[in-house]
């Protein structure tokens, strides 16, 4: 059975390591915060200017001056810090953030990513995505394996305007976990009940399959 958004988030959360600062993009990535493994401490950065982001506020306690990059009202953890946008991207560009998780429209087997623009359609802008993907050492893409038309989003080459080149390290989809390697997408894990064949069929880019591919372990 393919994963839902929460399943993808849960699997990505297994990649977290103690002591990491993490930037979570809008959508599925945001859900990762709900699945931090026991015994692990991580801190969330939101690029509009907070480190140590907490959960949503209790009803009636929202503060218009305290939001995340998705413009959602949030809270701050003890030890949090607020800062300006230049300092925020100094953290990102200067590689002080250990992990970036973001969504994508397309990922290519060389690590290219497209997630900001569909020509001819409305252009909303790249926000902080280009800075994030150009800077982070460790970028995980969280997305569905195929688009609404059933077409693969894991491609030989991105067809949409790029957000960054050769930057994605890992992709976690509703079907699989894949590393980006010089040989293409390397299949690491299958979603529970998903066959290698199904993943093959849903992947347009070069796919490397070596040995037995284990199933993801989710609690």
């Amino acid at each position, binding site marked *: 059975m393919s994963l839902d958004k929460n399943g993808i988030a849960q699997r990505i959360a297994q990649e977290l390591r103690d002591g990491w600062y993490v930037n979570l993009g809008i959508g599925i990535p945001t859900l990762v915060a709900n699945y931090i493994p026991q015994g692990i401490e991580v801190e969330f950065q939101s690029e509009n200017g907070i480190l140590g982001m907490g959960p949503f506020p209790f009803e009636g306690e929202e503060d218009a001056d305290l939001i995340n990059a998705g413009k959602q009202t949030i809270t701050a953890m003890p030890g949090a810090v607020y800062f300006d946008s230049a300092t*925020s991207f100094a953290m990102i560009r200067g590689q002080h953030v250990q992990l970036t998780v973001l969504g994508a429209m397309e990922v290519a087997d060389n690590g290219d990513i497209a997630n900001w623009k569909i020509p001819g359609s409305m252009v909303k*802008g790249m926000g902080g995505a280009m*800075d994030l993907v150009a800077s982070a050492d460790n970028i995980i893409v969280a997305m569905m394996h195929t688009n609404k038309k059933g077409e693969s989003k894991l491609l030989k080459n991105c067809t949409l305007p790029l957000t960054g080149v050769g930057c994605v390290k890992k992709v976690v989809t509703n079907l699989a976990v894949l590393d980006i390697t010089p040989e293409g997408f390397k299949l690491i894990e299958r979603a529970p009940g998903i066959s290698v064949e199904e993943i093959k069929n849903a992947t347009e880019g070069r796919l490397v399959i070596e040995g037995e591919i284990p199933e993801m372990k989710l609690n």
Partner: protein
Amino acid sequence: MNKVVSNVEEALQGVESGMTLMLGGFGLCGIPENSIAQLVKMGVKDLTCISNNAGVDDFGLGLLLQGRQIKKMISSYVGENDEFERQMLSGELEVDLIPQGSLAERCRAGGAGIPAFFTPAGYGTEVAEGKEVREYNGKPHILESALTADFAIVKAWKGDTEGNLVYKATARNFNPMMAMAGKITIAEVEELVPAGELDPNFIHTPGIFVQRIFKGEKFEKRIEQRTVRPKN
């Protein structure tokens, strides 16, 4: 060095059609509401607005879009606004999209006398078109230039008569860099206090960057995405 002006009318004197303005804020958080309302009232046109976002249809910079007062937007993300979309697709509105970190750094550079710098953001994308590329530490970087404005309009939590500013929580965002980059910088504040009342150790924007300061009449502080947990 008293920078206080008595109201928003006085604060925005000299803003004219065709000028380039920087406006602080991220989404609707930390935007200079009172000044935007005054710009609507003044009816200045053909503005180039440098602002991370473009407001929503009926608030923030959306109000200037409604009145077709903006000729060009320089932003990183503009997708919360139907009127914006209409004007952009019809070609009425020029839009220059810039990675958010580059936008912040370009404003800071403008204020800091750094005319250009290299950044990895945008390499290999549309953003890099026509820009110089140079490799540092084995990674390609593009050359980005400083941004400045005729007027920078920022919003702070507290300010003193010398123009020293303090922002609250994530309402800080682009305000400090834009305050640095305005030929004339206008600050609207929720609380205006005498010089000496703010702790000199904890000021976000030193008054040297601010030419005019006033207490905003009212702050709606609209929330774009109200997300909450139920109380048990």
